[in-house]
């Protein structure tokens, strides 16, 4: 695997985690709903390029972590809803552990250098 792919993987991994977590807490949501929710939860600090959500959704669906169905939105419009599968739940747990471990490592690395920081 080339380094470029590894880098996108990390980024995608983050997005994957956000989407899976959102679906776990909110239940089935359409694409816009997911984007909206992620922005709300991050109190609009995370500017998601909403368009990147859709390729990610395809990927998650192909892995069998989420499943999509056409349905009606709150305002009675046809929309595609994404929901978490059992496999997705397992994956989410895995991702969360990994994320926790990752952030723990990052924090530990940061601690001994109080001033300066990573430039």
């Amino acid at each position, binding site marked *: 695997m080339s380094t470029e792919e590894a880098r996108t993987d990390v980024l995608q991994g983050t997005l994957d985690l956000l989407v899976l977590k959102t679906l776990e807490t909110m239940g089935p949501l*359409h*694409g*816009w709903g997911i*984007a*909206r929710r992620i922005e709300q939860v991050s109190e609009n600090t995370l*500017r998601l*390029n*909403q*368009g*990147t959500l*859709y*390729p990610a959704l*395809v*990927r998650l669906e*192909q*892995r*069998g972590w989420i499943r999509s169905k056409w349905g009606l*939105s709150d305002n009675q*419009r*046809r*929309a*595609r809803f994404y929901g978490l599968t059992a496999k997705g739940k397992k994956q989410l747990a895995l991702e969360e552990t990994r994320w926790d471990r990752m952030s723990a490592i990052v924090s530990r690395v940061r601690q001994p250098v109080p001033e300066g920081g990573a430039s």
Partner: protein
Amino acid sequence: MTRMAIFLSRLAALLRRRSIEGELDDELRFHLQMETEENIRRGMSVEEARYAARRSFGGIEQTREAWRDRRFLPQVDAWVRDLRQGARMLARSPLFTAFAVVSLALGIGANTAIFTVLHALVLRPLPYPEPQGLMKLWETSMWGGQACWTPASVPNLLDWREQNRAFQEIAGFTVGGVNLAGHGETLRVPASRVEAQLFPALRVRPFLGRTILLEENAAGRDLVVVLSYGLWERRFGADPAIVGQTVAIDGAAHTVIGVMPPSFQFPPRSGVELWTPIIFNQYTRAARGNHWLEVIARLKPGVSLTAAQQQMDAVAHRLGQQYPEHRIQGLLVQPLDGETKQGTARVLLVLFGAAGLVLLLACGNVAHLVLARIAGRRRELAVRIALGAGRWGIVRLLLTESLLLAAAGGTAGYFAARQALHLLLTLAADRLPDGIPIQIDAAVLGFCILISLFSALLAGLIPAIRNSRIDLQSALKDAAISGGGALRRRLSPLMVGEVALALVLVIGALLLLGSLRNLDRFDMGFRPERVLTMKLAVPETWTVAQSTVFYRQAIEKARAIPGVSRAAVINLVPVQSSHTGSVFTIDGREPPPPGYEPAAEIRAISPEYFQAMGIPLVAGRSFRPDELPDQWRVALINRYAAEQYFPNEDPVGKRIAYGTGSGREDWRTIVGVVGNVREAGAQSPVPAVIYSPLGHPVWTSTTMSLVLRTSVEPAAVTGMVRRGMRELSPDAAVFLVRTMDQVVADSAADTRLLSGLLAIFSAVALVLAAVGVYGVMSHQVLQSTQEIGVRMALGANRSGMLRMVCSRGLQNALAGTALGLGWATLTNGAMQHYVIGMKAIDAETYLAAALGTVAVALGASLLPAWRASRVDPAVALRTE
């Protein structure tokens, strides 16, 4: 697993691409609407809201693109792009494309047609369950000092069956013909007499009724017959109540007991139409030295061919010790499949080889055309590489082009194959067995696709690899002088190879055409013109005395017909076969060691045979009309037998006896010597032959050939002779009416078939090679335009340029010729079997073919040479 599932889901998505993309559009539209409305709710104007929604979404087209790459297979898209571009490039040079497609179609078509026949006749397994377990058993013995196989004798067969532990079933059979009485004329039908064990050994059940029972092989039972499906349909109108009815076979009523299924053939590829029980009488059960039974056997499960052979060696060894007087040498176990198709396979392999060469030539041409075009596109390719197209990208582009060509060529080739197959089946009609469907099926289609792909690879990979590393600098900067010096380059491998390929084919065709010419002049040892022959068959139940009377009546009746000048019968007419012989003993000689006794073909003839056939009497006298074998113990021999067995002495007056053993009483006196006859055709050497008077109990068979020399055209008397013969007996059959000219022509049927096809192949090959040479030379001239211009500006004259280009062509052609001659010398030995009147490596033929091929190559380089001589130096130097 997941990867595979994802790939499949992407692949499946490609099929519903439009609707899936539509769904994405719906989804994105919904997203933007929701975002816009949300923005309006936040207090933006409609215009602002829409704009903000788009901005927070990011690039819609990029999203779509990224989504597509995930949802579908981006490689396929790239490939479709390559295909489109390739197709555009090909469409831009229609002449090039048409030529490439036509030459590939010719090559692929020829190969596919021949593969169809090869597949149907040779590759397809025998039509029985578990065919690999079926074996043929032969006795081996020494014959005239040479090892050979013979059919089995009844006592040996019975002992094998009793003593072996390797086979489940062993069954003896004979193949011949029977006279089937019908409406009007008695029909001759190919038939087989078989032991009851045969059908279980083949593991085939009847379509109607039953097969033969063990007890029906004993004498004195009711006569029964099993019909082939084809015969039942044609002759008996597919009557479902046929079982139990009686039909007249060889003049005796037989009860139909069964009908075999449509696909059933036995022996394989033989066209036999009915099977009757073979009956062993007291005489045959005792005659261990009488070899007449073919034997088929089914291996026990788990027993290998080698193990079976070892076991049977032991059995044969035991029998040899038990019956030393029969000199049982051994026993050969041979797969049934291999035994039945040697001849066909040999013809087809020669044809396949030839068709393969044509395809190679076609691929070579296409490869060169692609190469030449690439040279014109060096700059384009260099730009592509400079812009980041990888080596693989360029290879893929070029491969795609040749793949497109091969796909078109393969499709056209498929239709060409259908036509070619039709032609092939017509040409080879009398060489093909009845009842075996030869048609294009899935396997043939697969083969066609496979060789198309192979052609694409061959024609595309060479140029692709050679050009994937283009020197960017020179290609981009110095396009003007790139390719200079092409005319001084070393030999062109493509041109040399193509000339060589074409030459190999031309040599093959010339050898065979020369053989056919030789056949017309070839001295077979008799005068075939105005000789009519036909087979007369009497029922097998007739005694030799009865048959002899019938044959004599036939001769008298035929001789009385106006236009017939001589009439005779013989058991086997010449140039067909030489497998009816015997060992013999010469009176007064020490018996030679076993296996080295003198041996000869035996022919039973009526007195006028030599005059009728036009065979010269060399010494002594011929038979007299009143000579019957039991009264006059006489024989004639041919010149070869005289030279072989009576060197430096006069054979006339010497005494011989058939068979071996001491204390012989049945001596026959040699009364004359006649000229040699090619008994087995022009390609086979003359055997020793002993002629015995008609009426000998062994050699007077139930089928004899009537031989008539006519004073008019044979066709004029044919009808009358046939009618006359039919009137003699309702139980006898008349069939296979032919002139000896036809018999001679038929003896070279394989040569004729091959010569026709190879002539076509070599003509195609020459055209392809000529186009190839023309292409290479034109290309070189075109690339050297500048160089030529410089030379001319420096004072070279036009005829000098003409000479220079021609000599380049000649060099290549000569190199190709040398290669081709060597190649043909190595491979054409395979054709010796079909070559008549000369060796397969014949200096004259090779020289003629070489000269012709060089002439064609030189001719093809004339036009480019002329173009080179017309180059205008001013124009050549000014333009690029």
